[in-house]
């Protein structure tokens, strides 16, 4: 059966890159004794795919991988066994059965992602940042130049920015919440939005200025025009 695993990544594990996280899960699944399926051929590999690579330095509460397994007692048992063999900084949140058809693949489903963006040093922001943010968000179009393999192209961020709001932490530090288009078609990274904000408000972000935390990944069960976002986790069922 097909399984979707949701996990969070925090603490020192944020420095472990995507390819190494894949290797990490291959070994963790063996340690936990999950009955995973292998591809055919002389050098079989685990049937495993990740929804969306998370950049080095980012933390997350909503990471996903899909696997295919033989037998398993229950969702609860698998979560328990996996968490018993995790390194500090990775926690498995759920282990759910997903529909068997090909279209249910996490990687192809990803349509949007939620992020929280904080500032390592809030003083990089201009004093009137709240006002500037409102003016930034109320533009009809947010035009940026995006570097691609073929060169540069102009892009309007506005339709790809599903939600954007400015709030505060418990200690009064600014937090920006973003729901961004994600996945293979129009993947928007939070840095891109913050750079555009900087350009609009007349400040620039030094390197490593942002602390980015991914909150959730979504599939779109609506249409392109009228999207309806459901978390990847909600597409699976406990067993």
């Amino acid at each position: 059966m097909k399984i979707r695993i949701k996990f969070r990544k925090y603490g020192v594990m944020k420095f472990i890159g995507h390819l190494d996280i894949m290797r990490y899960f291959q070994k963790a699944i063996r340690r936990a004794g999950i009955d995973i399926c292998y591809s055919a051929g002389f050098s079989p590999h685990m049937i495993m795919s990740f929804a969306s690579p998370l950049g080095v330095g980012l933390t997350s509460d909503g990471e996903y991988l899909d696997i295919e397994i033989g037998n398993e007692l229950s969702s609860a048992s698998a979560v328990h066994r996996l968490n018993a063999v995790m390194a500090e900084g990775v926690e498995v949140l759920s282990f759910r059965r997903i529909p068997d058809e090909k279209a249910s693949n996490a990687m192809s489903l990803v349509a949007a992602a939620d992020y929280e963006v904080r500032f390592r040093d809030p003083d990089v922001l201009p004093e009137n940042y709240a006002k500037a943010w409102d003016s930034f968000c109320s533009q009809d179009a947010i035009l940026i130049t995006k570097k691609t393999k073929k060169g540069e192209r102009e892009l309007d961020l506005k339709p790809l920015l599903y939600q954007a709001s400015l709030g505060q932490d418990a200690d009064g530090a600014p937090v920006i919440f973003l729901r961004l288009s994600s996945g293979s078609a129009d993947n928007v990274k939070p840095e891109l939005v913050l750079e555009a904000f900087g350009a609009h408000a007349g400040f620039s972000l030094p390197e490593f200025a942002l602390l980015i935390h991914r909150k959730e990944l979504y599939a779109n069960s609506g249409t392109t025009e009228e999207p309806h976002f459901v978390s990847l986790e909600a597409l699976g069922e406990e067993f």
Partner: protein
Amino acid sequence: MTKSDTGKKLALSDEILLSIDKPARYLGNEINAVYKDKDQVDVRFCMCFPDVYEIGMSHLGIQILYDMFNQREDVWCERVYSPWVDLDRVLRERRIPLFALESQDPVRDFDFLGITLQYEMCYTNVLQVLDLSGIPLSAAERTWEDPIVIGGGPCAVNPEPLAEFFDLFYIGEGETSYFALIDAYKEVRETGGNRQEFLERAAGIPGIYVPSFYEISYHEDGTIASMEPVNPHAPRKVEKQVVADLTHTYYPKKPLVPFIKATQDRVVLEIQRGCIRGCRFCQAGMLYRPTRERSLKMLKEAALQMLESTGHEEISLSSLSSSDYSQLPELVNFLIDTFGNKGVNISLPSLRIDAFSLDVMGKVQDVRKSSLTFAPEAGSQRLRDVINKGLTEEVILEGAGQAFEGGWSKVKLYFMLGLPTETEEDQKGIAHLAEKIARRYYEIPKERRNGKCQITVSTSFFVPKPFTPFQWARMCTREEFLEKAHTVNAEIKEQLNRKSIRYNWHEADVTVLEGIFARGDRRVAKALRLAYEKGCLFDSWTEHFHNELWLAAFEEAGVDTDFYTTRKRELGEVFPWDFIDIGVTRKFLQREWERAHEGKVTPNCLAGCQGCGAARWHTGVCPGSTPADIQEGGEQA
């Protein structure tokens, strides 16, 4: 900070970790890493492999000792590796002291810094680790506040080039004397003793060498006149430590699993220690005598436990000359039966190519992709007899032939250039042997062949090593080495099947340096320090090796490098390492040196004891000892 950004403390800031290559090298937190409360332990030991993380994490010895130390409740053993050049620069610029991975505490706060010396080309990295830790490079300048710096590993059998930088050396296998050393340290600390008192206590522990307790005098020609203990606690001879029973000893059931891919990304199962063969160039073959096996039962259990605790997808057998392990078929068949259908690869290096190994390899590898390895070491039978390498041309051609019939088409051949008594004919013999193997391949009818064959010939340059029969040998100059390589290359290019043969040779400059430190004495330390100060680091990495800096360092230090390399030693010469009792007697080594010149081969240990001296430990393959499986209680496969 978000609630999710909690967890272990780090010595480096996010900005630093995000601007260097592979930050995972510096985080600790790996699966099976050991964390303790530093206030609840008496002794903090920092174990160092002085090379980059991915190399150091692949080393079994450290994993064994890490596990062994951490079994003691009163000890916390952590790890440190050489920071790569990018972080090295940052640590210096920002004056951040080098830290251990687990606690992320500065290394200089530890009680011990143990550095494994696996190859000579890591010596500048030893100085780097001390320097970045803020520990005085010279042992003489350290105080009771500094860690005790102890060296071990194969290069510690000639510790003299590093003597100035170490407080102690551990000679031999780590499983035996370390606990006595820790106990002595605790006692001296508890009773308010000082550093000197501890060093004196340490000098009395078997296998521990305290370099500051000896004085060396030299003859006018530069050779050693004498090496005298100058402290009453220092023994005249330091005896190598040997684990008597390799079945009932420490072996990590939960090895560390790095997040980034290490050189050895697999479970390593050391099946035996030592080698019965007695090749005359081979230092490991002499150092690890007597050959001792681990029991089949222990190895089966260890394999199961280690695969389960790591989740690795590969297991590799490790030892010198693995084919000599008495229960190899039972072990290999067990691994294939147990793990073969569970996606676990089984890797079998250092197997003799014969019907058994081909059968096994056919089961565990993709024949079309994998290659066969032969190490004839010398190109002619005459020279193979000189070096006591039992492999004959007939055996090689027979093995290659069987393999080719079985579908293999890739062969790797390893040789050494610059061996004692070598002639141009011997060098050309390397090319000729490769040609014969290629011809054997093309004897197979075209329709049954797997395209062209690929024969890769690699030569390294011979470095005479301490405690081998060739310790008296003259080493070649850089120019001589390169000329030999060109001779081989030219001969290969002349041959019919040249397009099926590829030839690689090793760097000559690094080899010369290796030769200087392998047989060096205390006087080369000055050049080592100068080279480090000039910026030499990671010398085993071609892109970081700067021969011109080394040459300048030797010049400035007034070290005549030829004295250590190209000079032929007289039989009676006192060597810097002669104060170590390695088990194999000098008399035996000398007899082997003489037999080499007569072209006489010496039978292996199983064929009959040759009286090398290691039998006094009454263990392993030596006469009068009990084999591993009988110790285990007569367990049968």
